[in-house]
């Protein structure tokens, strides 16, 4: 299935969870805040939320800034 992640279309196996997506991408869960289809996804839902073809995901983190 195709997922749009941070503006890029990427292919993944069906029925992965958000937690699995993070693990596959080498991102530790505490490092990011996630929007799924324009709604903020709370961390306790990462392992319960199964992604669907066409979902739009934003993975956001803190960086240096003034």
């Amino acid at each position, binding site marked *: 299935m195709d997922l749009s992640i*941070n503006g890029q279309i990427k292919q993944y196996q069906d029925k992965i969870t958000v937690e699995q997506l993070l693990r596959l991408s080498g991102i530790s869960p505490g490092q990011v805040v996630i929007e799924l289809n324009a709604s*903020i996804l709370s961390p306790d839902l990462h392992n319960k939320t199964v992604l669907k073809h066409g979902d739009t995901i934003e*993975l*956001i*983190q*803190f*960086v*240096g*800034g*003034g």
Partner: protein
Amino acid sequence: MDQLVIAGRPFDSRLLVGTGKFSSNQDMVAAMEQSGSEIVTVALRRVDIDNPDDSILSHIDTDRYLLLPNTSGARDAEEAVRLARLARAAGCLPWIKLEVTPDPYYLLPDPIETFKAAQTLVKEGFIVLPYMPADPVLAKRLEEIGTATVMPLGAPIGTNRGIRTRDLIAIIIEQANIPVIVDAGLGAPSHAAEAMEMGADAVLVNTALADTPNPGAMAQAFRKGVEAGREAYLAGLGSQRDKAEASSPLTGFLRNEQ
């Protein structure tokens, strides 16, 4: 030094520092430590999913520093509100440095979108610290809707040009009942001291610390500048005159008066 109080929370330091553009995390940490700051700003950006970095938060002791996320990159109120909500969802306290800068050349804050975003965020319970043009009318309007501070610019972000908006910032300080934090453009400790001598409650500095070979030493210099400026303001500066007024007695000269 007397304490700075923002939204009921006291701080011993009147210097806020940004964490952007340092050449290494080591330099950033040195600047934070040497500045004596208790408030540090961070930004929110997309993760590079092909090459994820370690989080900046692993280098910031959040027991020691209040993390103040900004909404940099927002071009309108909607984008700023979205970023603020994401920052809060990331586990931060609901403090937000509101920045709406649609103009990519001078990064000047959009007063209308900043005001609209501030209205929404205050209603949602955020402690809002808005970066704003040095406009005394806008400062009063933001105060009226409940922002925690106002943050007028001294000069465009990252320019190190000092306080080019001096007369307007003086009016903002005169009229404000909330802390005035001079943000952007301060490039030297003397600029920070100048803001504090004018009666600003605090200053925020980033580029001036990151853009030097020795950020830790520069941060310490800024710390001293801020402290000197604040102490001078509290002591009360002498008044200015057009003509000389002798400091030494005008009698008893070693000559015969004619």
